[in-house]
C-alpha cells in the first residue's frame, strides 16, 4: 500500500499557495528624505574657528523608519507605508549640522575635526505627529565653552500640518527642525559674544 504524497499533488498544492499569496493587493510605500535645501553654489568649506558640533542624540522611538503618529495620549504608531528614506539618527545629525552652519554663516564641523572653542550637542526627545494635525518637536541642546562651562536650552514647539497626510507631517517636522537649528545658531552667536 502506498501512503506517500504523489508529486503531482505536491505541485498542485504549491501552485495553489503561490496563487493565494499573489492574490493580495500590492502595497504602495512612501519614503521621505530629510534634507536641507540645496546650496546655491559649490564652494570650499572652512571649519569654523568658533563653533563645533558635538553630537545628536535621538530618542530610540524616533530612530526607526516609519514616521511616528501619536494616535492617543502616550500611544504612538509608526507608519508602515510612510517611512524615512534613511536612518533618522544619521539624517538628523547631518540636517542639523548643515542648518546650524547656515544659521551662524560658518561651516560648523564635528568636534573631532575642529579646534573651535564652543561645542554644541543636541538631544531630540520627541518628534512625531498627532491625529489632530500637529507636528511636535521637543529637543534640548547645550553649549560647552573653553572652560567646560555649560549653557543649556530647551525647544518645545508644535506646527500645524498644511494638509492631510504623512507628506505634510514630514514637511512640518522638517520645518520644526529648521526652527530648532536657527535657535541653536542664535544661542551659539550669543555665547560667542558673551565670551
Amino acid at each position, binding site marked *: 500500500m502506498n501512503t506517500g504524497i504523489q508529486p503531482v499533488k505536491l505541485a498542485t498544492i504549491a501552485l495553489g499557495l503561490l496563487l493565494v499569496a499573489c492574490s493580495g493587493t500590492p502595497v504602495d510605500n512612501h519614503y521621505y528624505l530629510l534634507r536641507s535645501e540645496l546650496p546655491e553654489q559649490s564652494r570650499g568649506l572652512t571649519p569654523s574657528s568658533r563653533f563645533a558640533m558635538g553630537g545628536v542624540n535621538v530618542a530610540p522611538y524616533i530612530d526607526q523608519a516609519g514616521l511616528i503618529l501619536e*494616535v492617543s495620549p502616550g500611544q504612538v504608531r509608526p507608519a508602515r507605508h510612510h517611512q524615512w528614506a534613511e*536612518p533618522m539618527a544619521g539624517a538628523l545629525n547631518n540636517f542639523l549640522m548643515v542648518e546650524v552652519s547656515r544659521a551662524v554663516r560658518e561651516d560648523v564641523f564635528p568636534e573631532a575635526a575642529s579646534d573651535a572653542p564652543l561645542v554644541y550637542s543636541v538631544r531630540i526627545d520627541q518628534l512625531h505627529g498627532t491625529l489632530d494635525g500637529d507636528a511636535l518637536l521637543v529637543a534640548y541642546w547645550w553649549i560647552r565653552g573653553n572652560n567646560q562651562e555649560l549653557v543649556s536650552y530647551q525647544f518645545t514647539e508644535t506646527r500645524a*500640518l498644511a494638509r492631510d497626510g504623512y507628506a505634510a507631517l514630514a514637511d512640518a517636522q522638517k520645518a520644526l527642525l529648521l526652527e530648532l537649528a536657527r535657535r541653536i545658531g542664535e544661542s551659539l552667536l550669543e555665547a560667542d559674544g558673551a565670551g
Partner: protein
Amino acid sequence: MTTAQPELKQGRSLNPIWIIPLLALALGVYMVVHSFMTEGPEITIAFENASGLSAGKTKVRYRNVEVGLVTDVKLTEDFQGVEATVKMDYHVRDLLSADTRFWVVTAQVGLGNVSGLDTLLSGAYIRMSPGTGDGPLQKQFTALPKPPLTPADAPGLRLQLLGNRAGSVSTGDAIIYKGYRVGRVESAEFDIEQERMRYEVFIDAPFDELVDSSVRFWNTSGISLTASAEGLNVRTGSLDTVLLGGVAFGHPDGVLEGDDVEPGTEFQLYESYEATQQNPFVNGSYYVVRFTQNLKGLVPGAPVEYRGIPMGRVERIMLNELIAEGMLADRMAGEVTAEGEPIPVLIYMEPGRMSLPDTASSVGLLQQVVQTGVPNGLRATLETGNLLTGAKYIGLDYYPDADAAQAGEWGGYIEIPSIGGGVEQIMVKVNAILDQVNRAPIEETIANANAAIADLDEVLQGLGELLNDEGMQALPANLDATIRELQKTLEGLSPGSELYRNLNASMRQLNRTLANMESLTRTLSNQPNAAIMPAKLPPDPEPEAPQ
C-alpha cells in the same frame, strides 16, 4: 740826835757796761742757732756734663720759683761725669726724697715741641720735680739726661710696652685712644735681655681707666695701606701721629673687657691694628700633648681646635725637654717601648677664643675644664688640615670610648692625652681592612673565579654561535617585516580606512535586516499564516490637517 748810818752791803754786782756785750753775745748765739736751724740742705746732683751749669749763677727752680743755687761744679772722682753742689732753700727740704728728679732746662726746638726759649736770655737752669715726700731727706741725686715728659706726681697710669722692632715710635709720641690723645711715650730703650724695644708710656687720668688687661697697643705711625680682595684699605692716625708717630690702644674686635692693671704692667706693642686682630688675646696657658704619630707637617703656629673652633696654636715641639727627660738615656739603656717615646708638643690655648673674658681667671677656668674633661674622654688628635701640603693641626674632642686617663703633668705643663685621629685613624682602619684581605682565601677565590669565567666564556661562545646563525641573523629583518605587516593591517582597520567603511556599511545593512526581521517576527506573531495568506493589516492612520 741820831745819826744815820750807812748800810753797807757786801757782794759783787755786774757792771752795766757788760749788758751790751752780753746782749750781742745772745743775739749772736740766736743768729747762729737760727741760721743753723733754717739753713737749707746742701745736695749734690750728678750730670753727664756741665753744659749750662755755672757755680754761683745756675739756679734751681720749681714751678719757676728759685729754690736753690749751684754753689760748685766739679768733675767726679772717676772723671765720668760732673757733680754739682746745690744749696737748696730750707722750705723745700721736704721735697727732696728719693724720687725727686732734676734736669737741665735749655732751649729746645724740635718737630714735636718748642721749649725753654726763656733760657736764651736768662741762661740754663736746673728744674726740680719733687718726689712724693716719703722717706728720709735725700742729698745725692742723678740728673735726668732729658726733661721728664710727665711730672712724678701726675695722676695717671704708667705702663711698659714691648715691641719687636723700634719702628717709628719714639719718646714723646702720643698715646691715642679712638683718635684722642690720652698720654705719651716717656722713654724708649732697647732691652738687651729680651732683645726687644721697651717703651715706657704714661696714660693721663682719667683715661687710665680705659686701660685693662684686654686692651692692645699698636703703632699708628705713618699710613697703613692694605690691599685685599675687598679693595684698598687706608688707615691713618691724626696728622701729628702720621708725622711724629704714636701709639693707639683699644679692645680688639670680639674681646671682652679685662681686669684692671697695675702700674708698670707690660703690654705687647703690635706693628699695626691688623696685627692685633690676628692674635687678639693675651691670656692663655700652655699644655702638652704627646704624640706617637709622625709629626711632619705640624709646625709652630699650627691651630689647635676644639671641634673645629680655633682655641690656640702650637708653640713648638719640645725636643729639648724630651732630651732633658732622659729619652736618650732610656734609649741607651734599651728601655724604649715598641712605639717609641712619644714626642711632646707644647700648645697654647686662649680662653678668649671660646668667648670667655680674656682674663687670668678664664685661664684658670679653662685649665679646670681640661682637667675635668680628660677623665670624661677629652683627647687630643693629630689631624691633617691639608692633604696637598700635609699641614697638620691638633684637634680636641671627647671620645667616650677612649681608654680611661687623667690629666697628667709633663715638663711642668698640664698634659692632655692623645689618641690617633683623622687620617691616622683612617690609616689604621685601612690597615685593618688590608689585614682582613690578606687573611681572606684569595687563591681559592681566584680559582673559583677562574672556573666561573671559563663557564661564562663557554656560554658566551655558544651565544656567539647562536647569534652567528643565519636564521638568527635574519630574525630582526623578519621581525621588522612582521611589524610592518601588522601596522598595515591595523591601518586597514582604522576608522578612515576602506575596510572600516565597508564594515560600517555592512553593520548598518545588518541592523536594517534585523529590524525587518523584527517586523516580520512581529507580523507572524500577530498573524501566524501571514507567511502564506496575505496579511490584512489596517492602513496607516492618516493625520488630518486642522480645519
